[in-house]
């Protein structure tokens, strides 16, 4: 296990290095740079001054030198400084990362809470009335653009009913750690979470449904029935356990997908997280931040898949990771 993790981390290093190179080159290739983003159009900042600042930031060095300097710091955990926020990127990310991860996590949980029971029902009673409804919902969730859905959620629940706040992650008036704070945090999470979760169930439901339909026909299920195991138990003990395995294995992957896909939800609900930051940073040509975000997402993918493999290794006795 330890060896497995070690090896995966070892593999991760060249991958991340390559990723860093790619994103660095790409970020550099964007028209304009952080100085343009920050000062362009401010007549008081003369072109000379802008050159001066570029020089200070090292923006005029050949790209490989810039890359070298940047990656050396990066390896040491210093992701550089955001030009727009005038702040170390690590510091900048700290708060947002937490928000995004929290949102992703809640979305995942809620989407599982919806998807797993529905998937089970659809799989167990295939072609029933329920099943058709669930499949219909599935189609709907695949076909609805997430931002339209999120906007409608926002307009309905916030504007019309006024049940939930319009944006941000918490009401500042409550003290960190207090019950009110917790409630406020939860209230702010409800809409983004629900929007993401309701549209995010399709994969799981479909997978679970198909897998249960497959597993139902497996011989070991017949064995179980032949043992005299009651029907309900056949499902909970034998079929479900087998069908849930892949879902558990997707967990790591799903989280990374959610983090990467947070852009829409965060933008619409003005939820301060990585996705929103990414869009802002692209606009401001804040390429240290862009690069850091891409690196984080890349690392998240790697860690996510590793996590999936580890989970699978733990829950599935057939798979030994070493």
């Amino acid at each position: 296990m330890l060896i497995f993790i070690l090896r995966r981390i070892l593999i991760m290093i060249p991958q991340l290095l390559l990723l860093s190179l790619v994103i660095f080159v790409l970020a550099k290739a964007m028209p304009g740079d952080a100085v343009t983003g920050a000062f362009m159009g401010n007549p008081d900042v003369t072109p000379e001054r802008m050159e001066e600042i570029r020089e200070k930031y090292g923006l005029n060095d050949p790209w490989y030198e810039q890359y070298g300097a940047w990656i050396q710091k990066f390896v040491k955990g210093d992701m550089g400084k955001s030009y727009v926020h005038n702040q170390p990127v690590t510091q900048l990310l700290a708060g947002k990362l937490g928000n995004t991860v929290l949102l992703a996590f809640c979305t995942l949980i809620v989407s599982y809470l919806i998807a797993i029971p529905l998937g089970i029902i659809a799989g167990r009673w295939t072609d029933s009335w329920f099943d058709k409804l669930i499949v219909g919902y599935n189609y709907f969730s695949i076909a609805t653009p997430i931002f339209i859905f999120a906007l409608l959620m926002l307009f309905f629940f916030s504007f019309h009913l006024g049940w939930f706040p319009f944006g941000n992650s918490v009401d500042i008036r409550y003290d960190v750690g207090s019950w009110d704070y917790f409630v406020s945090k939860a209230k702010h999470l409800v809409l983004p979470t629900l929007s993401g979760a309701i549209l995010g169930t399709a994969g799981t439901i479909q997978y679970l449904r198909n897998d249960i339909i497959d597993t139902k026909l497996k011989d070991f299920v017949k064995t179980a029935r032949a043992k005299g195991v009651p029907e309900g138990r056949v499902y909970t003990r034998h079929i479900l356990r087998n069908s849930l395995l892949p879902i558990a294995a997707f967990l790591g992957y799903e989280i990374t997908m959610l983090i990467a896909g947070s852009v829409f939800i965060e933008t619409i609900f003005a939820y301060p997280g990585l996705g929103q930051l990414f869009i802002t940073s692209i606009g401001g040509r804040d390429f240290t931040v862009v690069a850091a975000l891409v690196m984080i997402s890349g690392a998240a993918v790697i860690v996510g898949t590793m996590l999936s493999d580890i989970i699978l290794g733990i829950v599935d006795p057939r798979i030994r990771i070493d």
Partner: protein
Amino acid sequence: MVKSVLEIKNLQTSFRIKDNYYAAVDDVSLTVHENEVLAIVGESGCGKSALALSIMGLHDKKVAKLEGQINFRDQNILNLSPAKLNKIRGKDLGMIFQDPMTALNPLSTIGAQIVEPMKYHLKLSSADMKKRTLELLRRVGIKNENRVFSQYPHELSGGMRQRVVIAIALACDPVLLIADEPTTALDVTIQAQIMDLMKELQTQMKSGIVLITHDLGVVAEMADRVAVMYAGEVVELAEVNELFRKPLHPYTQSLFSSIPSNIKDKGRLHVIEGMVPSLQALDRNGCRFAPRVPWIAESEHENNPKLHEVEPGHFVRCTCYKNFHFRPEESEGDNHVFA
């Protein structure tokens, strides 16, 4: 008089194919006695497994329709509620499946899988159940039973797994054991071991066994009585020595002469012409084997053939057996191309 454990009367198992039901097991009546091995042979698709699953009540109600009676200890299994059926299954009725590779839940330990039926049927403490399980494992010939207890199926070889499957079937001392091709998926040497094991267990337990196979060798080694099935029907039923000595039904005869080891001089094997008809294409009124022995005159066959008891305990379906002979020019080739 030996007691019968299972009495199948006019069982008909039909599958739904596009809105119509077609019988895969057609009007089968069989009796299994205590301490007896009843073998059911026949080629692939003749309805052996369908019969076994009918007895166990394992057919999916949505596709299968069962008619007739399956009396197990004077209860008709077909009329039992699921709960009552579950009381019998795994307790008095044990089943051994063909493929040991897929018959075990890959995610549970061997121990847990053997314990499971006990949990539902025996009132035992968990320590007792474990003890019993270990003993069972030993009885099916597994030596390091303590280790195997906590292993997972994929860690065992095919032969070992089949032993585990047998142990599960035996977990609650069943009165009747149904074994659907228990050795087909195994290597010859392992097959021999499993056969010997089953024989040994059978002498100990005195339960009835329904042994389903397509291998006449296995039948010869294990069976007390044999039912030969063709296209959903029992075409011949006899005591094993009787059948091997004097197979009567054309199908049985053909079967025997198509086995290489029965042909001494490396000559040609007998080939049954044509193909097994599909469920839908089957002509259900005449002799079902008639299309495959076209040289036998139509008049030799019976309409809606019955089982005739030709000798005590030896039944044959259809009158065509009486004047049956292999196609004379058969040695010339098996095909119409040369005809």
